[in-house]
């Protein structure tokens, strides 16, 4: 069998991205009696537990710019971000009728309240607000988190009717360790040679992991990395930037393309953090739940949705990312009305300013149609870096 070309892989991922009916997940479920699908929203969920229960974790990231939202607006005022309303639309329009459970991670009040709305609207479906500790001492936050994960595991056992063994979990951790390694490889490739793996492609490839079984997605990643790495693509006179703030509501694909069009090479971002939340491999030996908790408490990504106990550390992760990837600037792109991203932004900007790293900021919505202002701002940013860094 020949390995597929980048354009073939990207085309497949694009089709998955555009499919608002989640056909592949439906097919996966239909393929064997008793299979179950658990939906989850951003930002992080231990997918290993769902996998260990023999279920498919399905990432629900809103409706994008192709979904016509008719009922969703009936549940949300105009000053609330878009992702919950398009998610409600997906639910009400029956596009999620095959989903056996929904998880609402602790990211902000909007998603938190959505968990209760889901219970009210779809009382027959299992749904859970997945609370995580914001304190990171083992005996305090750790104990609580283990308690929450264990309760969740019992819920899934009840749902599936079978026990989850420690070995099941270990196997799942192993599978996800591999997936995370590949995702990291892809990010490394892009940081090194952004022209080989443009952001708009990398985005689609990683996003495919939200709907595919993890094993299949790992294979896809392998193929893409190999194919993209081997391809000979022209190098453009672009600037290297990091994009941050997009960890929950997703930007339209056109926005990512517009950034590239206006002269940016995106070398790091915070799209779909769930796929690289845990840094490094989770150990396989020992108690798996304990290991997951340890990884969560001590080896996980920083983001606006997390409390930073150490004032000195606030925002430093961005500076480190800039140094690591050789970025020339940072673009804060946040969803309109996104409290976590927007409240955090001034603090992160101060840190960047202190480190003499240029940045700009703008807002978007998942269904933004007009890219002209965004191109203009990003373009000016690039112009100013380019015209003067050369001089």
């Amino acid at each position: 069998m020949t390995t597929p070309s980048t354009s073939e892989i990207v085309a497949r991922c694009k089709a998955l991205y555009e499919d608002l009916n989640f056909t592949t997940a439906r097919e996966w479920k239909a393929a064997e009696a008793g299979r179950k699908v658990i939906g989850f929203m951003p930002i992080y969920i231990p997918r290993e537990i769902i996998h260990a229960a023999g279920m498919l974790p399905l990432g629900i990231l809103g409706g994008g710019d192709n979904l016509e939202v008719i009922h969703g607006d009936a549940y949300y005022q105009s000053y609330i971000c878009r992702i919950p309303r398009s998610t409600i639309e997906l639910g009400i329009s029956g596009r999620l009728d095959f989903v056996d459970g929904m998880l609402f991670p602790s990211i902000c009040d909007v998603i938190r309240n959505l968990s209760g709305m889901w219970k009210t609207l779809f009382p027959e479906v299992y749904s859970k607000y997945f609370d995580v500790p914001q304190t990171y001492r083992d005996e305090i936050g750790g104990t609580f988190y283990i308690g929450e994960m264990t309760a969740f595991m019992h819920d899934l056992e009840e749902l599936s009717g079978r026990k989850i063994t420690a070995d099941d979990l270990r196997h799942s951790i192993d599978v996800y360790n591999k997936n995370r390694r590949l995702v990291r490889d892809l990010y490394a490739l892009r940081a090194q040679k952004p022209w080989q793996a443009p952001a708009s492609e990398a985005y689609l490839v990683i996003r495919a992991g939200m709907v595919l079984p993890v094993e299949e997605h790992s294979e896809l990643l392998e193929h893409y990395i190999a194919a993209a790495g081997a391809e000979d693509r022209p190098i453009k006179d672009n600037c290297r930037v990091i994009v941050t703030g997009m960890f929950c509501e997703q930007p339209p694909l056109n926005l990512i393309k517009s950034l590239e069009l206006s002269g940016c090479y995106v070398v790091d971002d915070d799209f779909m953090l769930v796929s690289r939340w845990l840094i490094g491999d989770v150990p396989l030996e020992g108690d798996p739940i304990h290991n997951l908790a340890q990884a969560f408490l001590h080896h996980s990504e920083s983001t606006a949705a997390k409390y930073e106990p150490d004032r000195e550390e606030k925002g430093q992760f961005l500076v480190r990312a800039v140094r690591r990837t050789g970025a020339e600037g940072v673009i804060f792109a946040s969803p309109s009305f996104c409290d976590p991203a927007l409240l955090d932004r001034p603090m992160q900007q101060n840190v960047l300013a202190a480190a003499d790293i240029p940045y700009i900021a703008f807002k978007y919505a998942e269904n933004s149609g007009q890219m002209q202002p965004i191109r203009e701002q990003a373009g000016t940013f690039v112009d100013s870096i380019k015209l003067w860094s050369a001089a």
Partner: protein
Amino acid sequence: MTLAAGIDVGTGVVKAVVFRVGDGEEDWLSRATLRIRQRDPMALAREAFDQTLEEAGVAEADIDYVATTGEGEAIPFHTGHFYSMTSHARGARYLNPDCRAILDCGALHGRAIITDDPGRVTKYKMTSQCASGSGQFLENIARYLGIAQDEIGKLSVSADDPEVVSSICAVLAETDVINMVSRGISSPNILKGIHLSMAIRLARLLKAIGVTDELIMMTGGLARDEGLLAAMRESLAKMRGVEGEITSHPDSIYAGAIGAALWGAFRSEKLAASGTLLRAS
């Protein structure tokens, strides 16, 4: 000697200029403006370009660099594209070398830019989302009041008791204005009120990017509007922290095109020096 053309495709007006640059001289050879009003901006860009070529007496082939700005990214015959804020900043510096902050007021967007002494854009911000307080809005209201564009400024300056428009939405603001007419508020006071509410927004933009005592230059179509200029002065005077003076220039509408042409010439020389001058396809 480098010949460079700058074409600024705006949302309201297409502007084009031709410059000859070299030996420390920047000669402005020709200029053209065409209002878009329901016409195809791309075709108008060509037309404006042709007009400037003719006026400058040069052939298209002689132009070393055709630089576009504004919404001109898709123009087939350009050499390179610069984004509006880059070009406006450069154009403003050409028109008034002392300015350090630039306020571009166009048909739909306002842009505030701040530059350092060497002319480098350091910070900028543009208005977004809502269109109340845009040039277009002012134009609509003026039409409704039966006032020609070139009269707006003069009338506004003569206002004695301006009535501020409060609505955040242009559509609702229109109703506000209609209400004012029916309450017998005079046109100068209405226009001045609109100018003031625009000025407050624009002043906020300036403050947001950290303008303090820099000389501020207005560019774009609305910079010609003396009423807006006066309103800007008033609202800056009230805003603590922004102390700089604000000025305009009769040719300010060309700032974007000028900046594009000058940057084009700069790039062209640099690229020629490094031997990589390509015509962008």
